[in-house]
């Protein structure tokens, strides 16, 4: 493989990293509040501190609908939004929009699951001590659920690496794009191979780092 090809691979890797980084940030920004809302508005038996059945139901439905969309379809549907926000629907920057929106409902569920694992007795104690709802969320629910939250974010990042590769198929750039355009369409098996290996290594690194952080947090308790 020529130096030119290697430069191409490096650029694609950086594009993938940028897509994953920013879509993780934005999906967390969107998903975290929804996940918290889903938890605190759930019925009291499930640990909800502000039970609001109607809001909880509506939110839950929206999350489910968004989650059941195949990513490719969602991405095409979101082209107009990308165009509105970024000015184009093609390329790495434009892809961050559908990636973030596709991952947000997943993040919301992951956060919800993690927060609901917090011992209801501990939340009751915090309430009995006169905590405000915001204090319960910020000083009890999130710190108590932190190891699970870290695992959830790890899972999200790994999912987003997969999604970003798929986004390559419709002009998103990154390693997926490289693998399809060079590896598949130009029969460059070696480029395809390298792209897949890099994705594999990325996933592995994220998983190990995530597991380590989560385990450290638990060990400190």
């Amino acid at each position, binding site marked *: 493989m020529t130096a030119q090809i290697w430069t191409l691979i490096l650029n694609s890797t950086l594009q993938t990293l940028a897509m994953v980084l920013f879509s993780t940030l934005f999906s967390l920004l969107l998903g975290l509040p929804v996940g918290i809302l889903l938890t605190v508005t759930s019925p009291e038996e499930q640990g909800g501190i502000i039970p609001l059945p109607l809001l909880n139901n509506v939110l839950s439905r929206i999350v489910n609908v968004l989650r059941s969309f195949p990513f490719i379809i969602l991405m095409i549907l979101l082209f107009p939004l990308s165009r509105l926000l970024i000015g184009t629907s093609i390329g790495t920057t434009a892809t961050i929009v559908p990636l973030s929106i596709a991952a947000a409902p997943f993040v919301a569920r992951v956060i919800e699951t993690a927060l609901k694992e917090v011992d209801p007795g501990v939340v009751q104690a915090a309430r009995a*001590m*006169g905590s405000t709802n915001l204090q319960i969320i910020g000083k009890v629910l999130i*710190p*108590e659920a932190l190891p699970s939250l870290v695992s959830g974010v790890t899972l999200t990042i790994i999912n987003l690496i997969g999604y970003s590769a798929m986004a390559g198929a419709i002009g998103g750039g990154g390693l997926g794009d490289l693998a399809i355009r060079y590896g598949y369409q130009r029969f460059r098996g070696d480029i395809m191979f390298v792209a897949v290996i890099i994705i594999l290594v990325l996933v592995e690194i994220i998983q190990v780092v995530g597991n380590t952080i989560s385990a450290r947090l638990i060990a400190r308790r």
Partner: protein
Amino acid sequence: MMVTIIRLLYIEGIFMQIALHNLQRTYGSLHAVNGVSLFIPSNTVYGIIGKSGAGKSTLVRLISLLEKPDDGEIYFDDERVDELDGDVLIERRRRIGMIFQNFNLFSSRNAAQNIAYPLEITGTPKARIKGRVEELLALVGLEGRGKAPISTLSGGQKQRVAIARALACNPDILFCDEATSALDPQTTHSILSLIKEIQEKMGLTVVMITHQMEVVRDACKHVAVLDDGVVAEEGLVTDLFSNPSSEVTKDFLTHLVGVDEAAKGNNGQMVQWSKKRGAYTLRFRGDTTDQPILSMVSRTSGVDFNIRASGVQRVGDVEIGTMFVDINGSDEQRTAAIAQLREIGVVVEEGVL
């Protein structure tokens, strides 16, 4: 009306710290708390005992202001608190300490950080928090253990941290919700001693919710027995032990004196003489436990006593004896013997639970 009564009592010097008036709480068709009225005096340890399902947990959630009653009123001093809402409710909760069966400590915080939590949420300056936490750690006998992660502490130590946390904001009331139910007997004893010591030191009103009669015996001055969502019996612990009136109280006492154990052949606190439990229960109180009552009565009335099991236990400062006996003789002799026993001050009950 209620307020007037409370004011009157206040003037007479019998200050009511907590007053419950006809509390009701229903879940669906279940009347968890069905008309509970209680006066819990200040500066004392007050027990609320009941079996599971008697309505204890609901009652404690109501008086700790975690839940609102469907009907009825709750007063702390002469302030009505069951209708509080928003910031006022949160403010009031901050002056209540509470400890739990499962400790409910924050696993994400170490011992000192747990104790600091109530201070943090009330906006205490960092420098003051540090000193106060040290003070509280010393109070519960955990000096130098502040940095310990919660998972490294034993059950008793966890409950000590929980007590320190509950006391951080200088509460006037401490609720103990089955606080010793997850602890072994020795640890239970040390935690109860600590609670009593702190009660005296701080002049707290302590309310202990429990299903263990031992806890009531060892720690409480007054007790209310809860059954099926209502108060079955209420009064001084010593009175309740020497002269229980409700079936549920007698049942609690029977289990306490270890009849069950004795019947199984295990030596509990009772000395067991016979496999059968006897036809009568005699309860002796205070100085009557030191007198040769049975032989006296036996001589004058002509009956024979067959002692099946008996024992003495200490309730606060008073000794209370329980004895299971058969009384053999003619009907008149038996009636005379029972009358004589009652005259001396022995409580005689037919049958053994």
